[in-house]
């Protein structure tokens, strides 16, 4: 019995379909003016890769600086600018759009049996807004950077810095609208464009989790926008809303900022959870354990996600009584994540598991996200939060969730749908190696930071007491390994664009509608709108379909 489910067409005769969304039209303009969700997804993929590389390079600089206790590689204000730009780029230009704008954009219409998103022009507009935001960020960097931290804490950002706060604010504002339009488009598409027979409970979980994330994008992002507008007005006019000297309350900014930025972490992680559901089901040949529970836990995370933002402010002098409420609600929002983890684990039970690269990344996700999620409870508990917040513990926690969780999910998804997007396979062996390197490098980088944080090392420090050096050296060493882990996929995926094996329609024998069409798909996705008569992850249905096809061809 083979240990793989990969079924590729005969390489000597197989060809990439002549007519597909890539070959349909040629020339730069045909890409820049396209309304095709798949082309826009490719545009997004290219642009977020650029920003991920920039953000990653900045992360490398941070780790290099922290190799020694003194601030010797760069001056403290340079260091401050570097970590600020790292945060701004990674959060607003990479994590928020990563899975939704690339994989979500590419797959949601395919998965629900639609020809495109509901509003193709708005989709293109959101890419242009993203690029505009990105260019503003690049301008900020060229003009000398900004050192507010990605959290724009007032009154530091409003009155005490004369770096490029305005241009960064505008950049984030614009990128925020890009995210709003993506979310809006998804919600409308999922409501209005499902193929006949594609009921809500036949939707793949990937679609459910994107739906939940989209709600957060639409309702949360504008609050960040207004908070930034007020920061800019404060800087330009001095309207006093966040200025203690004029009677304003700087904590109000924290409320408005975290009202978005806490749900934002769910915007980042929910689409990743959707990827994991697809991958685990496919490579264990089994329906996701407790489909409804996983679907509703996404929605529960989205809803509860709006009620917990104050847990970022427990030590900031907010009312002790309101911290009780917010801490309790934080405990509640942790539960749906726990449900998901166990449901994924039990999806493996009595499955028939193979270990291709996407599955390896998914395993990485489960392990790292479990750690990330559990350490989140440390920070949501008011008592331990006092000691652990604002230290490297929190840095480690959100990197476990965002990098260990989200980035693993992103890479898992990219590998999983790469054959669908490009029509070619990535090289399996080297990519498995890359997954392993990433996992090891990641743990080396961020696990020591939990101990550093418990020991009390504050975040955003360019220089630190010498007794923390050993663990920092470990962390920097790990970051080097991690860097290799991220560089490899960029290289071999680019290589595979030309030299990869022809994938055929359904190399993974997966059940989603996207796998039943040619790779890469037609511009209009489906030659004929499918009529859906089976649940998601119905492997019996796939088996019967294959049998039917064999009969037809043999006759």
């Amino acid at each position, binding site marked *: 019995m083979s240990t793989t489910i990969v079924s590729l067409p005969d390489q000597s005769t197989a060809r990439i379909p002549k007519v597909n969304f890539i070959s349909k039209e040629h020339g730069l303009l045909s890409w820049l003016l396209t309304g095709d969700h798949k082309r826009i997804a490719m545009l997004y993929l290219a642009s977020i890769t650029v920003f991920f590389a920039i953000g990653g390079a900045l992360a490398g600089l941070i780790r290099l600086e922290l190799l020694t206790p003194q601030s010797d590689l760069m001056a403290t204000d340079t260091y401050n600018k570097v970590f600020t730009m790292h945060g701004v780029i990674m959060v607003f230009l990479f994590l928020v759009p990563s899975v939704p704008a690339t994989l979500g954009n590419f797959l949601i219409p395919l998965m629900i049996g639609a020809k495109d998103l*509901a*509003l193709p022009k*708005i989709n293109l507009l959101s890419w242009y807004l993203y690029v505009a935001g990105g260019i503003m960020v690049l301008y900020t960097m060229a003009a000398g950077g900004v050192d507010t931290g990605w959290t724009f804490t007032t009154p530091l950002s409003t009155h005490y810095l004369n770096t490029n706060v305005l241009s960064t604010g505008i950049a984030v504002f614009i990128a925020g609208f890009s995210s*709003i339009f993506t979310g*809006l*488009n998804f*919600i*409308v*598409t999922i*409501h*209005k*464009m499902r193929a006949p027979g594609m009921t809500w409970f036949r939707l793949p979980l990937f679609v459910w989790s994107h739906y939940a994330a989209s709600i957060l994008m*639409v*309702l*949360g*992002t*504008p*609050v960040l*926008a*207004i*908070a930034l*507008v*007020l920061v800019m*007005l404060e800087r*330009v*006019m*001095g*309207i*006093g*809303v966040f200025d203690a000297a*004029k*009677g*304003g*309350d700087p904590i*109000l900014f924290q*409320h*408005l900022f975290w*009202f978005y930025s806490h749900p934002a972490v769910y915007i980042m992680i929910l689409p990743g959870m959707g990827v994991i559901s697809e991958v685990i089901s496919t490579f264990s040949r089994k329906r996701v354990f407790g489909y409804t529970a996983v679907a509703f836990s996404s929605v529960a995370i989205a809803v509860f996600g709006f009620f917990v933002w104050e847990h970022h402010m427990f030590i900031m002098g907010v009312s002790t009584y309101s911290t009780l409420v917010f801490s309790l609600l934080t405990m509640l929002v942790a539960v749906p994540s726990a449900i998901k983890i166990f449901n994924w684990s039990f999806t493996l039970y009595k499955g028939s598991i193979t270990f291709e690269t996407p599955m390896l990344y998914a395993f990485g996700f489960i392990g790292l996200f479990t750690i990330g999620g559990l350490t989140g409870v440390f920070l949501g508990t008011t008592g331990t939060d006092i000691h652990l917040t604002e230290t490297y513990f929190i840095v480690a926690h959100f990197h476990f969730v965002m990098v260990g969780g989200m980035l693993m999910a992103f890479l898992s998804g990219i590998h999983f749908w790469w054959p669908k997007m490009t029509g070619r396979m990535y090289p399996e062996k080297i990519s498995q190696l890359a997954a392993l390197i990433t996992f090891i490098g990641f743990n080396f980088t961020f696990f020591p930071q939990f101990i550093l944080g418990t020991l009390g090392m504050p975040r955003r420090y360019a220089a630190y007491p010498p007794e923390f050096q050993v663990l920092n050296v470990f962390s920097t060493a790990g970051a080097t390994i991690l860097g290799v882990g991220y560089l490899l996929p960029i290289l071999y995926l680019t290589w595979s664009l030309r030299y990869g094996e022809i994938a055929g329609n359904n190399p993974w024998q997966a059940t989603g509608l996207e796998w039943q069409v040619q790779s890469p798909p037609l511009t209009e996705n489906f030659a004929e709108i499918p009529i859906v008569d089976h649940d998601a992850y119905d492997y019996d249905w796939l088996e019967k379909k294959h049998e039917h096809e064999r009969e037809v061809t043999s006759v």
Partner: protein
Amino acid sequence: MGQQVDATGFAMWLFLLTEIMFFGGLFTAYLIYRNWYYPAFVAGSHQLDIIWGTANTAVLITSSFTMAMGVWCAETRRKGGLLLCLCLTLFLGLVFLGIKSIEYGEKIEKHHVPGFHYSLKSFTDPESDPQIYKMYHDKPLPLDMARHTEMYFGLYFAMTGMHALHMIIGCAILVYMVFRAQAGAYTTGHVTFVENFGLYWHFVDIIWIFLFPLLYLISRHG
């Protein structure tokens, strides 16, 4: 179910949700500071001209009415009526902006724009402002409270400014629509655009419906 709301209409509603949340941040700030600095907010509010404010509310409500009529004209394929309604809406929108700019002008004259040589004179010494003193006989505010009127005007400019910005965008789209309507674009059954714009315009009206009592009508009794 009865009605078929098409995708763009639904999208427009979702966009309006983001707008609600956008203004939500401003309303939150307003409520907190009004609660903290009530006397300053009363004194600041007295500086606003209730005639202009009421007139503007009426203008905007009327423009909402003409816009609704415009949608009806489009639905019933009345080209002339649609053109008239759109032009009226545009005109009323511009009247609103005109009145708003007169009000802003007054504030600039009196140095009530935060951050730009803000003057406390009207609040620490209300009798120096006889026109308003005549109406409300405000007691002079202690200096510390008077300073917080700057917060009131900060919020006033942020809230009405954001609202006016939405009006300006609306007027620009109206101009475009007038030209398209003249070419007969919306009276052949394709009313979606007009309808969606109507939703936007009414939403801007709703924001004003709240801004008016919150900013103009704080304790008007003398």
